[in-house]
């Protein structure tokens, strides 16, 4: 089984994100592998270890993306494709999906495993749109994958009414939730080895496409501005005699907040 997984390099959300004049302040930001993609990479590596799958990752972005590719190598991904083209700085989910379609069509893949969303945009669209472009079956928000045979997998998905069990015919696209596994950390030795491993770097021309093709009629939506999140303020905090302060708070919930 040949698997393609997608890895996005995103802003580290553990750090403070500041907005100034409608834009994100770049100073002080750090970049990491997207949390959901880390789970996708772990899923691929487990399928390699347990089912003999062949694993390839693709990452779209600038020169710095090599760090998330090497990190994934260190965990056990075998092949890496880096799509690096200066025309892609403002790419949205549709543009990413179109590029991924081109990458998919150049290989002979049985399964695409993507993270269900990226922690920078929080869109949760790219993997699903890719499946539409490819005309492949797709299940999103996947929390478990079982290989049935060469042509079929069974996946579990967190749905509205519980866990949905879906049988998929390959080739297919799945997008995974972080709860699918506990991603391993790269070992130092693995990181050293990963530095020597080659990465296939491609621009749009090398992929057999162009900025006109991947952007179609233009971006479907554009960010006009970022707005700082309105932070909640600390309210009334009560300490002391538990029966007394609890009664007081219940009275406030009923008469002040009017939510009970």
């Amino acid at each position: 089984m040949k698997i393609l997984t997608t890895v996005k390099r995103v802003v580290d959300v553990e750090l403070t994100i500041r907005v100034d004049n409608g834009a994100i302040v770049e100073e002080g930001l750090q970049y990491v592998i997207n949390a959901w993609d880390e789970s996708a990479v772990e899923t691929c590596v487990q399928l390699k270890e347990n089912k003999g799958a062949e694993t390839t990752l693709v990452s779209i972005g600038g020169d710095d993306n090599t760090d998330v590719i090497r990190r994934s190598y260190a965990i056990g991904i075998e092949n890496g494709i880096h799509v690096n083209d200066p025309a892609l700085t403002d790419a949205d989910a549709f543009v990413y999906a179109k590029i991924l379609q081109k990458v998919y069509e150049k290989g002979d893949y049985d399964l695409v495993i993507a993270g269900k969303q990226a922690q920078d945009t929080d869109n949760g669209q790219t993997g699903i749109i890719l499946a539409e472009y490819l005309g492949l079956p797709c299940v999103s928000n996947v929390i478990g994958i079982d290989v049935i045979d060469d042509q079929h997998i069974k996946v579990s998905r967190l749905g509205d009414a519980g866990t949905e069990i879906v049988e998929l015919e390959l080739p297919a696209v799945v997008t995974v939730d972080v709860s699918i596994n506990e991603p391993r950390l790269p070992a130092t030795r693995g990181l050293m080895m990963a530095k020597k491993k080659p990465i296939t770097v491609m621009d749009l021309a090398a992929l057999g496409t162009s900025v006109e093709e991947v952007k179609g009629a233009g971006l479907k939506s554009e960010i006009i501005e970022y707005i700082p999140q309105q932070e909640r303020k600390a309210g009334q905090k009560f300490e002391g005699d538990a029966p007394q302060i609890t009664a007081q708070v219940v009275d406030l919930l009923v008469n002040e907040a009017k939510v009970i």
Partner: protein
Amino acid sequence: MAKALVIADIKNGALKGSTAELLSKAKAIGAETAVVAIGSNIESLIPGLVSAGSDTQYVADDPGLELFSAGPYASCVVDAAKQSGANMIWFGFSESGKAVAPRVAAQLDAACATDITDVMLEGDQIEIIRPAITNKVMQRLKINTDQMVAVVRAGAFEATEEITGTENVVKLSPPESDLKAVIKEIVSDAGSEIDLADANIVISVGRGAKDQTGIDLVKELADDLNAGFGSSRAMVDAGFLPHSKQVGQTGKIVAPALYIAVGISGAIQHLAGMKGSKVILAVNKDPEAPIFNVADYGIVGDLFEVVPILREELKKVGN
């Protein structure tokens, strides 16, 4: 004129509140309204769809649509979108909505925005507001396409009480089933419990509850209040509760009228999932716990002492 097509949010055969909320918002910004309902044996929901504020009801009622399957559901929405000529196609905040919306957008070649909290309409120009970067900032986007597909964040819009609609039912032909992604079964892990996304009150338990005894104590409070019962990541990671109960950035995002955090310190991860609640009450024995920085009301105390008193006091006021 702008026209909104709202996807009826149906769970266990009943219409959820988000449908009226989305239709109310559409009317408030001056749009015409239509709704599309997808399922099996859903004819009885039509009066509810009308009173929720829709002026046309597209209904796909077929035994093949009993279990959720993203492909056929998307086909129904696309069919209704084309017939209605809607330029705004809105889903309520649900896992099925998040799975179907990007498919519909790709098929219609329309813009797609998830998690939106507001929509502005000026002539034909649509702008939306949504959170991004793990809920740390908001972004304002301009839609460049004629049509847009959106998933509306829970609690973003309010239903107006005086809203009404007109009955005008259009039956949709059943879609082809997805033979390459076959839904086998749905294993309910929540039983008949109240859905976190719908609940008016959500009570979540954290590490402070220590073990099953503590969890059961907090669960009793949730049961008293008919509240949704959630959890911090710590209690899920420790194996006490399933992932479906986790409130937070990588779990469920909730915005109830009242959120009660019991024994939860308030990690960024958790706050990202509940900061949108209207009123927050926190119970924690550590007066310095970060949860108090976002709580409207805070009780500093041991939950094992406070929760039983809280139950008694709430019973006195008629719950």
